[in-house]
């Protein structure tokens, strides 16, 4: 694996890149123990505010902090403009694709995507066949994971079209950075991210069912306090000024959705739901779900409620579908994709499978339906035994996997026990789609793999976060 492109020091550490000039100067002026002191202060703030996440199956660490790195990740205005254009294009295509899959299916008839990849896919929702959703929008909130391997290109690693999380970190990281490093901000012109909650609320209101009141009522639906992203749910509800509801707070009557309040039942028009499809409605999906609302899907079918994101969007961020995204963009928009895809071998294809089995040492193998960095093989870092175990799995169930080259993700200077050192990063910007427009707040969540050499940035696997700065010109 080649030496990674460093976002501050460039390829091979020969130059300080333009966007990092001022930060670099500041770093040479700032003693290392001052940074360490700030880091501790940041941690204390996070804990006091209660920004925690839960790791499933780890009783000891029921509430853990995601480590926060105080060195910001910086993008220039020019880089952001390119990224923004590419993200809008991608999300537009995702929405058109979903509308098509659940209606006319032109893309299948054009033989661009094999039918069985849709119909045999557990995240395809037959309940959504032929059902119109308000304003034809399926993915209202998308989190697109972006990586870089060189200064020229942004590459999409993953589309998150279901219930992407992490935006609270984008907002809180900025809040804490501004508190800790006012002087550093004064030396930069950083685009603000604080209007995200307003943009989100506007987008959610704009997609209310056509019959809804002029001032539609929006609620955020959470699985509850034991969910790993509960902090984010309550944080967002608070910032948006909307009720944070659980399934038991909602009731469906005559195909209309209501919240139980101290003054009786109150009609709800839009639900920003952070509950997976499977748990939304025990009458339609999992009957054992206690998180859902009986009859919700029936109200949805009647067009009386908007669910954001729509039901069935999983089919668009499935890792097997991912490999077709460049074709999907071309098919619906007749444009060349601005953001690249990572080269992907589909193990369901015998030729690809043969190649993958021959190159397990070099590849990253992922479960088609996996997330959170679980169930993944990183060939170069794996032991012989793990590789052999994966070989068996691949042979048994090839359609469950895809493989990608091990990419040298770009690095960014990060505080470590031994001082500043490069660590691999990715970026998750959040793309909002309302009835009128697509908006992206300039920024996103930068995740950083804190272990030396590690490529896994997921918080559940020891990743941390950084504040992401988009510089104004």
């Amino acid at each position, binding site marked *: 694996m080649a030496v990674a492109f460093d976002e501050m020091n460039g390829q091979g550490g020969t130059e300080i890149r333009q966007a990092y000039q001022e930060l670099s100067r500041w770093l040479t002026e700032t003693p290392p123990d001052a940074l360490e002191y700030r880091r501790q202060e940041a941690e204390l703030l996070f804990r006091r505010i209660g920004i925690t996440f839960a790791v499933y199956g780890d009783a000891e660490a029921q509430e853990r902090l995601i480590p926060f790195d105080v060195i910001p990740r910086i993008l220039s205005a020019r880089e952001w403009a390119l990224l923004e254009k590419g993200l809008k294009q991608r999300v537009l295509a995702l929405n058109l694709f979903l509308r098509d899959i659940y209606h006319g299916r032109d893309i299948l008839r054009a033989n661009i995507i094999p039918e069985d990849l849709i119909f045999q896919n557990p995240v395809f929702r037959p309940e959504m066949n032929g059902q119109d959703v308000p304003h034809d929008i399926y993915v209202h909130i998308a989190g697109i994971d972006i990586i870089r391997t060189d200064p020229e290109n942004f590459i999409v690693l993953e589309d998150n079209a279901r219930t992407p999380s992490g935006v609270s970190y984008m907002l809180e990281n900025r809040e804490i950075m501004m508190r800790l490093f006012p002087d550093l901000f004064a030396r930069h012109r950083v685009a603000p991210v604080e209007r995200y909650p307003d943009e989100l609320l506007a987008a959610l209101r704009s997609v209310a069912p056509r019959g809804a009141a002029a001032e539609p009522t929006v609620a955020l639906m959470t699985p509850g306090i034991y969910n790993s992203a509960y902090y984010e749910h309550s944080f967002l509800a*608070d910032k948006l000024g909307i*009720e944070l509801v*659980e399934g038991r*707070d909602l009731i469906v009557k005559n195909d209309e959705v209501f*919240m*139980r*309040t*101290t003054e009786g039942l109150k009609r709800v028009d839009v639900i920003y739901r952070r509950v997976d499809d499977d748990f939304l409605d025990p009458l339609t999906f999992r009957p054992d779900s206690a998180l859902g609302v009986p009859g919700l899907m029936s109200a949805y079918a009647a067009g009386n409620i908007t669910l954001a994101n729509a039901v069935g969007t999983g089919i668009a961020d499935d890792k097997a579908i991912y490999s077709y995204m460049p074709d999907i963009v071309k098919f619906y928009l007749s444009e060349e994709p601005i953001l690249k895809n990572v080269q992907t071998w589909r193990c369901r294809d015998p030729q690809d499978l043969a190649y993958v089995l021959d190159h397990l040492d070099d590849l990253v193998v992922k479960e088609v339906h996996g997330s959170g960095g679980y169930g993944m093989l990183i060939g170069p870092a794996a032991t012989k035994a793990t590789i052999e175990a994966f070989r068996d799995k691949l042979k048994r169930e090839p359609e469950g996997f895809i493989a990608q080259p091990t990419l040298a993700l770009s690095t960014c200077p990060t505080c470590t026990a031994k001082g500043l050192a490069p660590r691999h990063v990715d970026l998750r910007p959040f793309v909002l789609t309302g009835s009128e427009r697509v908006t992206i707040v300039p920024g996103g969540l930068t995740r950083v793999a804190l272990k030396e050499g590690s490529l896994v940035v997921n918080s559940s696997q020891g990743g941390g976060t950084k504040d992401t700065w988009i510089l104004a010109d």
Partner: protein
Amino acid sequence: MLSRTAENLYWLARYVERAEYLARTIDATLRVTALPAAYIGKTNEWDSALMTAGVGQSFYDHYQEANEASVVEYLSFASDNPSSIKNCIEAARLNARSVRTALTSEMWDTINAAWIELQAVWSKGTASREDLAKFLRFVQETSLRFDGSAYRTMLRNDAYWFSRLGVHLERADNTARILDVKYHVLLPEEEHVGGPLDYYQWTSILRSVSALTAYHWVYRETLKPWLIADLLILNDTLPRSLASCYGNLVRNLDQIGVAYGRQGAAQRHARGIRNRLEHSNMDDIFQHGVHEFIQEFIADNSRLGEIVTKQYLI
């Protein structure tokens, strides 16, 4: 607001209030039991501490004997006592987490910081009397800070009123329970009235509702059992008296009623209890029987909790 939010606010306030009351009870009991035996008589003060906490039964499922070590452990730290101080703080934080959006950051910070301290400092209980005193102070200060931040930072809307309902219902219950357990030392016809035994019992009662100094200011008298009963039951200038709690409960319920544009069973029931307290005097109460009066009050008070729940919280 969501019924569940109101419910969480209500219980959050109750748990914090209960934790403080337990701390005060332990504190008062420690003081009495530190006296020479001649001053406290044969009653087991730790046993009555359990009774005032309403866990007199369940305690003996886990322990043989009620003494300082076992009762302090059970009331403060025991996981299997649903209303131990530790469980109260944990339940309070659980409720707080569920309604973070309805709390001000100061209130959340108080509960969250208390919960963090509980785990960081007190996870192994207390090792000495000094430690215990620190712990009890920590619990009382948490409650004061929580109450203070609610008072100073919350919007005066239904969220605030439901939280106050929790405080006053819990407080009324606690004061009534002390009276229920100790009523016999307040009876004027008890034969050893005024003996040194009773004197320390009386101070202990007053201390556990933080009313010892208040007593002297209100009555300018040495401790008299019927005046103590008067203070705790009928005197609405004392924040922990039953009359004061009901003055507040009626006011908070009326505010909710006005905001929502309708009254209900909860308002009527609370007003009924308040009127009875207003029209009573200690002579009548003693004649009727203090014990019966208190028992009735406890039942009425918990009935109000049920009515509020039915009317607003589910």
